[in-house]
């Protein structure tokens, strides 16, 4: 009896670790970095860290929804870059255009992704791979093959979105937090969110249970596209220009942080907060690499790959010990 309860509590602990494992690693990592590197804990550095993470976080938020539904969205990187260019372009015509234009276009691309996936049954991987190419092509077409960089007028109010600060912390950070709070609400406290979980957990069942599966999927990919657009907008405001070279490989970064955050790639389970933790972990690692300073740049990618692997393996082993 007692043996059973201890193993049960052990399993529960492993469960907590598995779900919050990334958070635990994050806390330990921050603590270690704080002691090891004199400059790590400085307000400037921390501010820098969270600001840098916020752009990827917004993209990863959309990706979290998509992955929970059992899908994947490879188009976010290109969409993000496209959003940035459109925002900078739109900024010539004022704040409203700067925001609405990229949102509209990026959402539309997401919408088409969703439509193709939900209505034709094509694999998300391949549909969004195609739109990765398409969005990048569109970006190049809009910028004379990348030769034009739209600059945002330094006086534009639009820049506040990216460069403004409140209590010393960048506006994108607040926006990210707001979006994550809304995202959490959407996922946990709405029927839409429940449908997302159901679709990821057992799509056929979701259909038979009468859930609006197609509509939910379309909304999901639209949301992911829109959030990539938002990240683009923030980046354009932050960089004061529509930089054409951003977003290459960002989809893989986003997938990595979502998975590190404990969301299952098989769908049906995951958390918003985990993704936030995943983003922070990634930023932390980069920061620590910088603080060490002597790591050859080629080794750095080896380290990132190894890190991803270690986190996933640990999660997996913990999950196993829990089902034991």
């Amino acid at each position: 009896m007692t043996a059973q309860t201890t193993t049960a509590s052990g399993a529960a602990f492993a469960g907590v670790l598995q779900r919050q494992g990334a958070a635990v690693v994050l806390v330990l990592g921050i603590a270690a970095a704080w002691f090891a590197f004199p400059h790590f804990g400085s307000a400037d550095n921390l501010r820098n860290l969270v600001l840098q993470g916020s752009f990827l976080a917004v993209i990863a938020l959309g990706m979290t929804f998509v992955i929970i539904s059992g899908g994947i969205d490879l188009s976010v990187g290109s969409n993000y870059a496209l959003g940035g260019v459109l925002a900078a372009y739109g900024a010539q015509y004022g704040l409203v255009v700067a925001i609405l234009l990229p949102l509209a276009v990026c959402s539309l691309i997401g919408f088409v992704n969703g439509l193709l996936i939900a209505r034709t049954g094509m694999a998300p991987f391949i549909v969004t791979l195609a739109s990765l190419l398409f969005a990048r092509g569109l970006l190049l077409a809009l910028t004379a093959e990348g030769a034009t960089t739209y600059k945002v007028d330094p006086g534009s109010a639009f820049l506040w979105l990216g460069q403004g600060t409140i209590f010393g912390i960048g506006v994108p950070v607040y926006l990210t937090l707001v979006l994550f709070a809304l995202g959490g609400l959407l996922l946990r406290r709405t029927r839409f969110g429940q449908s997302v979980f159901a679709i990821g957990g057992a799509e056929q069942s979701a259909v038979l249970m009468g859930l609006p599966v197609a509509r939910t999927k379309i909304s999901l990919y639209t949301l992911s596209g829109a959030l990539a657009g938002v990240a683009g907008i923030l980046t354009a405001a932050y960089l004061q220009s529509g930089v054409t070279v951003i977003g290459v490989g960002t989809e893989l970064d986003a997938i990595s942080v979502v998975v590190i955050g404990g969301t299952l790639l098989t769908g049906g389970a995951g958390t918003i907060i985990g993704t936030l933790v995943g983003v922070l972990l990634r930023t932390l690692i980069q920061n620590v690499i910088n603080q060490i300073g002597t790591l050859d740049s080629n080794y750095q990618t080896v380290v990132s790959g190894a890190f991803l692997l270690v986190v996933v393996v640990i999660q997996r082993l913990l999950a196993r010990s829990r089902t034991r």
Partner: protein
Amino acid sequence: TAREETPAAPSNGGGPAASAQSAAPSADGCTLEKTGYPKVDLKTAVVGFSQSEKEANPFRITETQSIRDEAAKLGIASDKLLVTNAQSDLNRQISDIKSMLDRGAQLLVVAPLNSDGLQPALDAAKAKKVPVVTIDRKVTSQPCTDYLTFIGSNFVEQGQRAAQAMAKATGGTGKVAILLGSSGNNVTTDRTKGFKDELAKTPGLTVVAEQTGEFDRSKGQSVMEQLIQSHPDITAVYAENDEMGVGAVNALKTAGKSPGKDVKIVSIDGTRNAVQLIVDGSYNAVIESNPRFGPLAFQTLQKFENGEPIPASIVISDDQYDESNAAQKVGNSYK
């Protein structure tokens, strides 16, 4: 334009360090006084270097090495030289620069990933009164206020010089294929613009195809193979970097043509492989883009700290290799 340079420390295959085109300091240059920045001693200062891409090609390898070597030569302690690599991620480069500032960098050398978009990092440096020298790529911010100065090649001019070399190599007539660099890259844009504008002055030369080879040898080779088939009349290739040029040579050889003779090849960079091909007779000209910025960058910072005026941009005098000089100068190329 080719001036004989005294070779710098023979650390990277012994090529000469970059040197300024016009040494005369302009009177309205940027001075320590004008910026109001504190004076720091180069020998004891913390210096930060932000590299943009992985050191996975000759240019980046040589560039970073040159900075490190020069710092060592000047006696800057290794823990006083902070080096970061942004892995081609612009946001990360900004964060890298901020992080170095945070760790006490007093002087910054930055190899920007992109001409636009570094503003937040430059603002942070300005706020901390840290002078920034950008190398190899110019940023579109305000010199002296946002950053101190730019040291590097003029990419448009490189394109122009390539066009001139092309005109010379072809004798002014021919059909030209352009192997473009990566789309969206400033370097691609500038080298294309310079080349095309200049080429227009030679009516005998027409561009029949322009396709991206993404600065990559194998992509350049593949594209060239396709172009040889669809445009058998191509007589000249302009590659926006050496790698694609070498790829084109491979493609031409496989197709049974003799590069350098049937089809003239001009490219930009100055890597050992390309220059050696000129010596071997299967290449026509290479416009140098010198990555050895170390000495000039530190010199410039030193001058600035000394109170001397610094011009808004310091364009380096890039060398040029062709049939006439490749054999003697092959040692100057980098790898």
